[in-house]
């Protein structure tokens, strides 16, 4: 019996080796090391460090900058995820009919998936630019002076618009796939029961695609919490830190963290814990879905 257990040991080592090496060197070790650096204050290149205390984590967590960023990030997720989902679902439902030319519409609706964060952000940067942007001219008012991306109270919404648009293709594709997996006879029977369009949607479609929606929202929430490129390219965290998300706080240019590798580690480990809590919450949701699948 013992021999059987050890039978494939060498081969398993060979097969797991590459993954194990990469994951331990570039995921596990850096995480542990980051936790360690997190109670030190260093120079920017991490070559000169001095240990403070583990209290640095608590200080950093309670600091104005971290708290502000946490709220910004939550707001950003609360804006982008629901609006993005509703728009994605609407487009998918709208295009979920076998009518002439639907292929073109579907391609257009999925097209934003081809734009990376950098591409989408640069596009929106110019659309919203108060001096050369066509949207700024159309909207006028604050969009013109000082410009949506510069206007306190609106900048986060402007970044959200860019990100919602950029993610629309993804949401559309995922929801469309979900819709196509809904058995047609369910609609038939609802129709026979006299349910109108809206009630068919709420009673049949929504429950049936809820696993898909959950998946889409998990992805969108994660993207919102890890947003960096759109902030970097659109607002650089401004105006007055209103778009400084947690990731940007850790890695943005010219912030308190960019001069101090230790502080950057502190913030990134805190970010890890925030994401961990989020993941566990989402995991509970996913668990439910798996039960349903069974």
């Amino acid at each position, binding site marked *: 019996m013992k021999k059987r*257990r050890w039978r*494939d*040991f060498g*081969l398993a080592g060979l097969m*797991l080796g*590459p*993954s*194990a090496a*990469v994951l331990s*060197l*570039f*995921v*596990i070790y*850096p*995480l542990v090391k980051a936790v360690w650096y997190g109670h030190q204050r260093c120079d920017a*290149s991490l070559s000169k460090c001095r240990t403070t205390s583990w209290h640095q984590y608590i200080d950093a967590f309670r600091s104005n900058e971290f708290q502000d960023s946490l709220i910004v990030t939550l707001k950003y997720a609360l804006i982008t995820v629901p609006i993005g989902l509703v728009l994605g679902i*609407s487009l998918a439902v*709208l*295009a979920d*009919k*076998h*009518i002439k030319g639907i292929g073109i519409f579907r*391609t257009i609706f999925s*097209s*934003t*998936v*081809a*734009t*990376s*964060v*950098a*591409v989408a952000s*640069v*596009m*929106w940067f*110019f*659309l919203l630019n108060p001096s050369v942007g*066509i949207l700024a001219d159309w909207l006028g008012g604050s969009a013109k002076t000082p410009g949506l991306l510069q206007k306190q109270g609106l900048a986060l919404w402007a970044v959200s618009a860019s990100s919602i*648009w950029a993610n629309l293709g993804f949401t559309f*594709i*995922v929801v*469309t796939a979900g819709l196509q997996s809904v058995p047609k006879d369910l*609609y*038939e029977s609802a*129709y026979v029961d006299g349910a109108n369009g809206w009630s068919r949607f709420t009673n049949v479609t929504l429950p049936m695609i809820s696993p898909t929606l959950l*998946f*889409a929202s*998990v*992805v969108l929430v994660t993207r919102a919490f890890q947003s960096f*490129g759109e902030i*970097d*390219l659109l607002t650089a965290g401004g105006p007055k830190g209103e778009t400084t998300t947690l990731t940007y706080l*850790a*890695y943005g240019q010219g912030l308190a963290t960019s001069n101090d590798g230790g502080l*950057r*580690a502190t913030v*990134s480990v805190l*970010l*890890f814990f925030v*994401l961990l809590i989020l993941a566990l919450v989402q995991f509970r949701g996913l668990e439910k879905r798996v039960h349903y699948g069974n």
Partner: protein
Amino acid sequence: MAIDQVTGARRIGRYTLLMVAAVIVFFPIYVMLVGAFKPGNKVLIDRLLPTNVTLDTLRQAWREGNLGRALWNSVVVSVVITVAQVATSVLAAYAFVFLTFPGKAIVFAIFLATLLVPLEATLTVNRHIMQQLNWLNSYRALTVPFLATAFGIFMIRQVFLTIPKEMREAASMDGLGHFGFLGEVAVPLSRPTIGAFALFSFLTSWNSYLWPVLVTTKSDYNTVQTGLKALKLASLDRPNLVIAGTVIVALPIFVMLIAFQRQLIRGLTAGAVKG
């Protein structure tokens, strides 16, 4: 099929809605396309009409942004990462499903736990490692930390689990070793999932932004994403040049979108596959 039929006024209504939605969604792309074909001093004239069409702006963006080099870098980096991730994931997944060894559950749990560690938590130290190794500004820095991912291992393990154990036993009787079974049975049976994962992995590395920003200081190692950032920073006074740059950078993925639409859908919904 009664409810699928759309007739008369409702049909016109739906087309109208579709048209409106399509115009709105496509609008930013359209504006960029129009801008990319305009000469520098005409960007503010006819922003919605393709007048004064020229290819000069695109050519100039290509040259000044060194976008040819950036595209090549992105292709190399993304292909290397994708191939490696598929290989390492398939091997590891196989070990977890078809091999017997002590501590399997614990090892798997540790692997899985790395999924919970976001890239952002490890970047500072990883950048430091790259610096210590003197790997900054190299393909190694851009690829090596990403040659394996627990996500791929998990996804492929799920599909390997659906292969009946009896098949392995039968193959074993036929004298087929583990690698033979892997290559001739397990992988071919899992091709759709592996393909979806490959596409997912390609897109993720193609779109990667923060890491390349951190580990490169030479424009020779710009990927398309950081190349676009550099072009934006270097040429804000010439908006049309940057706009042309975005068009060039977005184009390959647009082509991919159209060519691999079905796989792309699978790739994007990869996480949603049952399990």
